[in-house]
């Protein structure tokens, strides 16, 4: 038979469990906007009864645990999606900047400059004055404008490449900080979880893994209480409580800038170059921008500059300047690579516009070569691509203006594709984050309902205590 004091004990425990429940609920409410927080649930069970042949005597309730509601599968999906989004986001922003270099919608750009140059050739061919001194100056100025345009575009793309390199270098310490943090959290969780589930630490670790996944594509799996993080190539970034740091290694043979760096993973005593295996995350996106997207844009400019130089020079070499000079219009270029950076007017043309070969003779009225130069506007030629010289041109046969227009279309298409990828990834991320919140997020309505329920339980238990108190009082008055 249970004594009154025993019942008082049951009520006391009921009060305490209700109070702990309110604590869990208020903790949930307090963290309603905390990023990465997973709602917690009080797990209660009736405490073991006192065995009695006349019927077991209940001893009330006890809190067995506070559980964290989280779904490892959704977390894994988010980790994969973060890596995709991080990469497309970086690439879409980069392409949005690159396409501005090729944007001619305001009426100026490389295509317009080329067109202007051909116009100047035509103007020279129609010059009313003997020797055409004015048209020669105009032509040299408009050639200079075309060169300035190419130089500026090239410089802009190279500056973007350099700033991408900086972003890559800044990214590495961030990744290393996150892997260290995950390893630390692994250690803390191992230490704590002997006693009770380390809910907050696991939330923090999941959040850190998500942040890491946005920066670099990783595979994760649980190993006991620890979260293992490995690169797609299999190199472990976090092994239990040990974090392996990524380091930059010099890339002195980079064709654009020898100060560019690659990503190394110290594997025992040797350094493994993992650059090519990093395809996702912001780092993967940055590497793609630096090593693939920007180089292809720069080489496109180079092909315009090189083909302009060779086509104009071929015709120009056949002519004779007003002063008898025979030579190129542009300085000769060794190859397509870096042509946009190095393209320049021929030294003779810089000294005197009389070196411009308007005719096949030096006669002041001879405009035959100027006519031939003006005809280059529509002349279809096999386009030299990077790597062609000294071999023959391997590109398609088209006019230089058409080549320029197709480059613009290509860059625009890349940018448009990447933008729609970004939109899609944003949508998918939203769906996954919502899926996570559906499981782990705090719903105020739910918590308030819980609160009302716990309040009632607390009040009822208090009433039991009051009743016992009365009963004790009545017994005491008898005495």
């Amino acid at each position, binding site marked *: 038979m249970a004594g009154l004091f025993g019942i008082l004990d049951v009520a006391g425990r009921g009060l305490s469990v209700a109070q702990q429940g309110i604590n869990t609920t208020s903790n949930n409410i307090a963290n309603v906007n905390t990023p990465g927080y997973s709602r917690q649930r009080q797990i209660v069970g009736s405490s073991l009864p006192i065995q009695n042949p006349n019927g077991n005597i209940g001893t009330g309730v006890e809190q067995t645990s506070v559980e964290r509601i989280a779904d490892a599968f959704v977390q894994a999906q988010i980790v994969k999606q973060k890596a995709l989004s991080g990469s497309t986001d970086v690439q879409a922003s980069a392409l949005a900047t690159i396409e501005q270099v090729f944007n*001619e919608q305001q*009426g100026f750009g490389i*295509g317009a400059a080329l067109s202007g140059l051909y116009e100047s050739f035509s103007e020279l061919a129609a010059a009313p004055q*003997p020797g055409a001194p004015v048209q020669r100056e105009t032509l040299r100025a408009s050639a200079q404008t075309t060169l300035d345009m190419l130089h500026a575009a090239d410089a802009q793309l190279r500056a973007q490449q350099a700033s991408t390199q900086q972003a890559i270098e800044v990214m590495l310490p961030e990744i290393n900080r996150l892997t260290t943090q995950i390893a630390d959290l692994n250690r803390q969780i191992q230490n704590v979880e002997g006693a009770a589930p380390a809910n907050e630490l696991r939330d923090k670790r999941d959040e850190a893994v998500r942040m890491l996944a946005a920066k670099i594509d990783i595979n994760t799996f649980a190993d006991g209480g620890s979260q293992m993080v490995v690169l797609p190539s299999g190199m472990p970034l976090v092994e239990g409580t040990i974090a392996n740091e990524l380091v930059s290694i010099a890339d002195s043979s980079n064709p654009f800038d020898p100060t560019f760096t690659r990503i190394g993973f110290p594997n025992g005593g040797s350094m493994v170059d993992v650059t090519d295996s990093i395809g996702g995350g912001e780092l993967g996106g940055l590497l793609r921008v630096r090593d693939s997207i920007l180089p292809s844009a720069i080489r496109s400019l180079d092909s315009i500059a090189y083909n302009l130089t060779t086509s104009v020079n071929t015709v120009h070499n056949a002519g004779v300047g007003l002063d008898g000079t025979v030579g190129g219009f542009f300085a000769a270029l060794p190859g397509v690579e870096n042509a946009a950076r190095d393209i320049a007017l021929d030294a003779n043309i810089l000294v005197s516009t009389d070196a411009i070969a308007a005719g096949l*003779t030096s006669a002041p009225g001879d405009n035959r070569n100027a006519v031939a130069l003006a005809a280059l506007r529509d002349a279809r030629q096999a386009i030299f691509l990077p790597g062609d010289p000294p071999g023959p041109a391997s590109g398609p046969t088209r006019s230089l203006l058409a080549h320029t227009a197709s480059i*613009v279309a290509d860059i625009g298409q890349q940018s448009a594709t990447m933008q729609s990828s970004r939109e899609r990834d944003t949508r998918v991320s939203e769906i996954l984050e919502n899926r996570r919140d559906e499981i782990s997020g705090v719903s105020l309505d739910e918590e308030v309902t819980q609160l009302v329920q716990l309040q009632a339980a607390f009040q009822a238990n208090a009433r039991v205590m009051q009743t016992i108190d009365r009963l004790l009082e009545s017994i005491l008055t008898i005495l």
Partner: protein
Amino acid sequence: MRITQSMLLRTALNDVTQQRLRLSRIQEQASSGLAINRVSDDPVGASAAILLRAGIDATSQFEENVTQARNRVGTIEAALGQTMDLLIQARESATQGANGTESPQTRAILALEIERIHEEMVAQANTRSGDAFVFGGFSTASPPFVASGPFDDALPAPTVSYAGDTNEAQTPIDERVSATTTLHGARIFLGDADGDGSVDPGSEDLFGVLATLRDALRANDQTAVAASLTGLSNAIDQLSLERTKVGMTDTKINDLQSRLAIRKTELQVRLSETQDADVAAVFSDLINQEAALNATLQSTTRLMQSNLLDFLR
């Protein structure tokens, strides 16, 4: 399915961001008047626009070239017309001089008249358009026709030699179309088309014909004066042929000018169709999008404000 506060917030935020983005794109179109504001808006259209703009530039340049060519050809036509007038005057003088009733004094006066015509014709042969001599081939910087000296009482009359070349400059006035803008003067005035320095068979040296006539008049040689009439007629025929050729060039240029204007308009229309925004559509889109944004904002604020606490007292 559980719906939590953060889900509401995230969805609302993403929707508003998307709508703001769409609105800003429409605003961009409205303010620039262009449907393509960056290459990725329409890569194919943007690339086509580059070629269309280059085509318009080229057509404008051809129009400018046509203007230059017109001036040249106009000058050439006028010079040849003047020369023709001079030859006709010379023929009148020759006809008069060949008349047996005319006195030696009259023939002396007629000789002076021919001297004037000769000098004027040299001036016409050295006509310039701008600063360029148009009858010297490619040698446009210096006078192509040089007289061996002034007229004096001596016989024979001074000769005229050609300092130009046998080329003719072609000004490009359209794709694969050009206008002849300087002429091989020796062919026209000296009857020397092959440029060997002597008169070709069947052609006339205009200055030579005048010189012979003048010398005949001065020598009061009625027969020789009459004989020179044949040379004058041949010279007039020779010049008429050249004038016809120049006239054809002029007609070609005139036709082309209107064709270029039409082509330019066509290209501009196509460029506009490719890249310009449909203003009416843009503004109706703008209003629709604004309404959609307002609706989203309103529903979001109302949804986010309400929860169970509003009803627990």
